[in-house]
């Protein structure tokens, strides 16, 4: 059946997000909280994540442009925190690196890592958006994608 094939494909896409290191266990924790009564929970959380992350990245960019390192600690903590919630592995790693550079006062390192953060974030966002779009169109329940 064509539908079965599609389902398999989406399941593979989901698995690749983990295999390629984009997402970690925290994402699975989120999926576990989704059920029939809350069928869009993961997507809702991820949407909030986009919103908050976009705002934070914006703030950090502004701060970087004036080399305002002092305001970083709190901004950074928030940023790293966000990525924990949905298990954004690669972005999290870049953020941690960014925080180290900031603490060391390494301006060039900061700017470089920040560009990486934006890149990884954009990549992840793209992949997640595509994933959720297909899920939505196929109206697949999560349980059918997760292999036991």
């Amino acid at each position, binding site marked *: 059946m064509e539908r079965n094939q599609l389902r398999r494909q989406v399941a593979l896409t989901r698995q690749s997000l983990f295999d390629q290191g984009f997402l970690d266990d925290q994402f699975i*924790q989120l999926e576990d*909280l989704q059920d029939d009564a809350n069928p869009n929970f993961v997507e809702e959380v991820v949407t909030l994540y986009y919103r*908050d992350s976009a705002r934070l990245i914006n703030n950090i960019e502004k701060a970087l442009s004036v080399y305002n390192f002092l305001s970083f600690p709190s901004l950074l903590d928030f940023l790293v925190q966000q990525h924990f919630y949905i298990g954004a592995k690669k972005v999290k790693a870049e953020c941690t690196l960014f925080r180290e550079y900031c603490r060391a006062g390494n301006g060039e390192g900061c700017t470089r890592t920040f560009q990486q953060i934006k890149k990884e974030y954009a990549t992840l966002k793209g992949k997640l958006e595509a994933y959720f779009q297909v899920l939505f169109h196929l109206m697949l329940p999560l349980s059918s994608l997760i292999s036991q």
Partner: protein
Amino acid sequence: MAAVATETQFHVLAVDDSLIDRKLIERLLKTSSYQVTAVDSGRKALEFLGLNGDDEHGDSSPSSVSPDHHHQHMEINMIITDYCMPGMTGYDLLKKIKESKYFKDIPVVIMSSENVPSRINKCLEEGAEEFFLKPVQLSDVNKLRPHLMKGRCKEEDQPSSRGKLWRKLSTLLAEQDQDTTRAWKWCYPNSFPISNLPFLNRFDTTGSKKI
């Protein structure tokens, strides 16, 4: 009649200024079958609890409370709050709750995204039951049940009405003077337990025999 153990849901008040955090903690709590109310600040939490300002400290004089100020104390079994919040931090909220005579026995749990030992100790010393590191997991929420059950059991240990009656009787009898006792015994010689304090003292406040 003895207090009846009901199967009512535990009601948890969640406090966090971040929407994503509120969403997560609310979902985690609801998954564990708790009733949840989520607010976005310490101030709103206090309002919800019916603690407005500082008229809850110890014994406040009635004149400090306006005549038509009606305290509506919500039935809450636990409060879980973020530490870092603008305005009133989770620690400030914890202190205010512990100072309140109505809510000081309600278990309070603090959440934080940072693992700062001094912060954790400070909160635990102030009376927080648990300190969770974010992101909070389902396994953390499962740790809450014993604290909630403890609170509920305390209610069930209150002396039953029968115990209250015994206490009242023994108080009355102890206050009774000898003349009254003698007169009573003369009138009603067969009313043995009522007039007999030693006999009454062999039972404790719940009406069970003392060892």
